[in-house]
């Protein structure tokens, strides 16, 4: 029983603090005796380290500590899957983000100056600046096992036989760029040494418990001696799941016994931070004369940069999603994730789905064109049905999402009476408009076989609050709104009755990471598991306190009510009174822990079970004089189950859409021989408010298949996935040019269109 308009009016819990500037982010914190830390990053993209000398730096007045690899008590390595990235390099650097030393000083200026006094002698090695070069037989080996981080593949049917039956085949290579998360708040925070050798780490992260685990390993400490305070963050988008500045702050804090603040400048963040995997994807897709898809071959090469981080998982995800929501009998997908000296690529909203969907939808559009079929009809013809298996033939939770969203788009286009055909109007000053539609499906959670724990805790506090505690993080996505909305819905209480605890390993249960579009879903699942026990205990306690039988009572706004009187008079007992009269020995606390739902008989590691779907309608205007593209409309229909927080949902889809607009039209972290050319926001451009359509329609299709008890799916990523291919198709509609490479550049359009003032 959700009151939609009440929900829409509800102000998000962290809203006022954020817009007034009252809210303190972790990078805003200050402590007494606090020092400032700076990290020395490698000058070379690939080199042997001949020597490191910190003597001069240590002598600079105001410098309190300088640490190198020699000062690491435990494992000199980190990484969410393989800890192959050195905390502080000893004999070799593999990218410009590699750290060699860290300094703590009395002022940030002194720390910055001290870096100049650290003497590092490099012996440069050949820079491997592309996967192609890394795969050559005589390429320098970047790791002991060679230059291939991970391989993944999926095959079914018979490609050769299938090709024989095709009457149209499209083969194309798609190139996807290196994108930056561009979170507003860069990596940073304060690490504070506590009495008894303990440590508190006030640094934003998507997974406090995992940071604790990694830090304990590096510092040779007990996990329980490290407390991570991790929220709120000014954005993350996948870039703050992995460790970043925490090890350096910790080492310096322990060395100086003072709080140490590190807050990376934007340029430092560009240099050291993770990026989206650039990929080259070659696809060969074929259909028969009636438009039935018969064959789909995909080769994916991902540039994973210098270290593993989540590279293997990203590749697995891309391989899994290469066939998308289409039923294709003969499939061959191969993926390779390759080490290079190009920074480090890792987790990024969309997680390999963006790249492979751009390619897949590009294939669908080209095939439809060759077959002279309407692009939507062509897709509908080959679309998965409710009970069909997932993209790799695995059993997935039945869903009609693909059809629902595509059909919604079809209706939307029909209403506007626009057709997907080219329309060039020369009397509009050499501009033309076009529309394009794209579709995607996106798996939530980490996939089968991965450690994907979830959990939560509900308690009734001594102050009379219903406390909901989760190990998830608020990066701005609206997690707090979600928790609040779900608790209110479940117990019919008010926001004032609730207390939420997140982002502090000292106070929250294990919930797994805030990633993979899982948090909303996992909060819902946790509450489903805890609500009955919690409610029973509350009502029993109320019965004890008031004498009213529990069967007649219900939880409600402000307290416990008689069922028939709810909202009509006053509660039988308020939550505050209940807490005050609660016997001292009594406590009401319910825990739950479980794993993210995966297919019961999943065979392929990493394959997903719960999927979200989105269809995007893009409308663009192409300027033939300059090749520039303006996005006039960007509408999305999304099927991800019930919407928990309407404002949050819209924010995720619109925000994701804008992020993807940037990916499509302007964002590329350009590298040259392993060095970043675009080192700040004056050269790495992200969309401004003027680049974004004034109105973006977001439609949520909330219905689930009959019997689906899995509740809300995640909507954090899906808004980013199908936007670029929709824009590309809209450009084809307007200008007759196919786009194979992102970001779409005006220069490429001008060349392809070959339109100058010379041709009328």
């Amino acid at each position, binding site marked *: 029983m959700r009151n939609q308009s009440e929900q829409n009016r509800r102000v998000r819990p962290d809203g006022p603090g954020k817009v007034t500037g009252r809210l303190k982010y972790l990078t805003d914190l200050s402590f007494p005796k606090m020092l400032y830390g700076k990290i020395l990053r490698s000058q070379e993209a690939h080199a042997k380290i001949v020597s490191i000398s910190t003597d001069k730096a240590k002598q600079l007045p105001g410098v309190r500590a300088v640490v190198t690899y020699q000062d690491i008590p435990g494992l000199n390595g980190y990484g969410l899957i393989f800890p192959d990235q050195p905390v502080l390099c000893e004999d070799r650097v593999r990218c410009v983000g590699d750290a060699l030393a860290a300094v703590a000083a009395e002022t*940030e*200026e002194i720390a910055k100056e001290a870096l100049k006094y650290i003497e590092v002698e490099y012996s440069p090695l050949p820079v491997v600046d592309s996967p192609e070069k890394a795969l050559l037989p005589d390429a320098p080996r970047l790791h002991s096992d060679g230059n291939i981080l991970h391989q993944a593949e999926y095959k079914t049917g018979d490609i050769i036989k299938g090709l024989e039956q095709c009457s149209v085949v499209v083969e194309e290579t798609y190139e996807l760029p290196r994108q930056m998360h561009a979170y507003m708040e860069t990596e940073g925070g304060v690490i504070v040494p506590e009495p008894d050798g303990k440590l508190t780490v006030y640094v934003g992260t998507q997974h406090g418990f995992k940071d604790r685990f990694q830090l304990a390993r590096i510092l040779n400490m007990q996990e329980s001696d490290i407390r991570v305070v991790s929220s709120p963050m000014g954005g993350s988008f996948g870039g703050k799941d992995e460790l970043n500045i925490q090890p350096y702050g910790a080492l310096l804090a322990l060395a100086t016994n003072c709080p140490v603040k590190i807050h990376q400048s934007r340029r430092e963040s560009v240099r050291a931070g993770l990026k989206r995997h650039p990929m080259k994807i070659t696809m060969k897709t074929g259909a028969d004369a009636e438009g039935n898809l018969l064959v789909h071959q995909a080769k994916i090469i991902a540039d994973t940069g210098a270290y593993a981080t989540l590279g293997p998982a990203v590749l697995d995800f891309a391989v899994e999603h290469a066939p998308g929501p289409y039923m294709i009998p003969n499939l061959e997908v191969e993926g390779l994730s390759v080490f290079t000296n190009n920074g480090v690529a890792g987790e990024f909203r969309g997680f390999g789905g963006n790249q492979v969907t751009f390619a897949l939808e590009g294939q669908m559009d080209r095939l439809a064109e060759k077959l002279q079929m309407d692009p939507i009809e062509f897709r509908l013809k080959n679309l998965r049905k409710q009970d069909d298996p997932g993209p790799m033939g695995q059993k997935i939770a039945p869903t009609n999402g693909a059809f629902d969203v595509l059909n919604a788009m079809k209706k939307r286009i029909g209403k506007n009476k626009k057709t997907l055909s080219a329309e060039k109007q020369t009397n509009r000053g050499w501009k033309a408009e076009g529309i394009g539609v794209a579709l995607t499906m996106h798996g939530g959670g980490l996939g089968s076989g991965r450690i994907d724990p979830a959990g939560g805790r509900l308690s009734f506090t001594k102050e009379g609050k219903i406390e909901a505690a989760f190990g998830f993080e608020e990066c701005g996505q609206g997690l707090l709104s979600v928790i609040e909305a779900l608790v209110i819905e479940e117990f019919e209480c008010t926001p004032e009755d609730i207390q939420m605890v997140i982002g502090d390993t000292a106070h929250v249960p294990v919930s797994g990471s805030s990633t993979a579009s899982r948090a909303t879903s996992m909060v819902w699942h946790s509450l489903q598991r805890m609500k009955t026990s919690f409610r029973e205990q509350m009502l029993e306690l109320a019965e004890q306190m008031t004498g009213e039988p529990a069967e007649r009572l219900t939880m409600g706004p402000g307290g416990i009510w008689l069922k028939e009187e709810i909202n009509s008079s006053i509660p039988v007992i308020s939550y505050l009174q209940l807490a005050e009269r609660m016997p001292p020995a009594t406590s009401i606390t319910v825990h739950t822990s479980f794993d993210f739902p995966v297919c019961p008989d999943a065979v392929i590691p990493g394959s997903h079970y719960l999927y979200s779907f989105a269809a995007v309608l893009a409308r663009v205007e192409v300027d033939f004089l*300059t090749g520039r593209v303006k996005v006039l409309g960007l509408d999305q229909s999304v099927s991800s189950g019930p919407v928990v927080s309407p404002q949050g949902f819209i924010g995720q889809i619109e925000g994701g859409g804008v992020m993807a607009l940037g990916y499509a039209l302007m964002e590329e972290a350009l590298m040259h021989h392993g060095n970043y050319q675009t080192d700040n926001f004056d050269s790495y451009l992200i969309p401004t408010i003027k680049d974004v359509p004034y109105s973006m329609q977001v439609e949520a299709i909330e219905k689930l298949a009959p019997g689906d008890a899995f509740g809300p799916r995640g909507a954090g990523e899906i808004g980013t996935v199908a936007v670029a291919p929709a824009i590309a198709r809209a450009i084809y509609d307007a200008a007759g040019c196919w786009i194979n490479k992102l970001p779409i550049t005006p220069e490429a359009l001008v060349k392809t269109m070959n339109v100058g003032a010379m041709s009328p």
Partner: protein
Amino acid sequence: MVSQGTAKMESSIVWIPEELEIALNLKQQFGADAEFVAGGTLLQTNWEKDQPIPLYLISLERITALQGFKKETSEGGPMIQIGALTTLAEIIQNPFFLSNLPLLAEAARSIAAPAVRNRGTIGGNIAGGTGDTIPAFLVMDAHISFVNGTEIQQKPLEDCLKEGILQDGSILVSIDLFETGGQKFFKKVGRREAFTPSVVTIAGSCRVNSNKEMEAIRLAVGGGSNQPCRLEACEKLLHGNILSKELLEKLFLSIMEEFAASSDDFYTADYKKTIAANVIVYEMARFAGQMG
């Protein structure tokens, strides 16, 4: 650059004179160790990229001789004088500019973003050498009043650019404009819709007489890494002629030849030339009443 919560090791000394003469004396006294600054919006981006901050900064912000704007009638006709300290925001918002110099207002609107425009000055936009208003001023036949020694001199903007006058310690005092009439266009092509460096900035003006001949043609390019200048050969090509399809084709080729663009990380010289040629040809055709 000073960041919150830190102390600089060495701070620059900032002078804020109220008289032009004092500012010039200070520059002479400190020479290369001193730089003029007004809004500082361009300089600040250089300092952020670790370009050295000069020991002395001589702020021009309080000098009254550089403030204000007016329109007067002189023997040569109406003249508009814009003080160097006039901000870009003023140019966009003040009805004086919207009615008298709409082309300039359009150019100013294309620069940076509101917060930057509140500080950025028209003098700085020109003195920096790469400002997007420069092509607009070139087609408006702007003259620059500047001072180095004791006297204020006036020269056409193009000569100032060619002679590097604003890089040698002169202070730009005002921009002086005489009515030129005719139709004008301005286009800045960036890498996104707003708050963007220029790929190429283009401006043009011309008159079409009763015989359909083109006269008083001015074409200018600049922006970003492009040296701001007039395309004089192209202007000559059009002057006194009636616009025809053949002439437009010749114009296109002439622009491709005359515009000395250079490639950068994002766009090739060929692209910059092509779009400049496209835009100019389109606008000239539009002015001459030939569309289609």
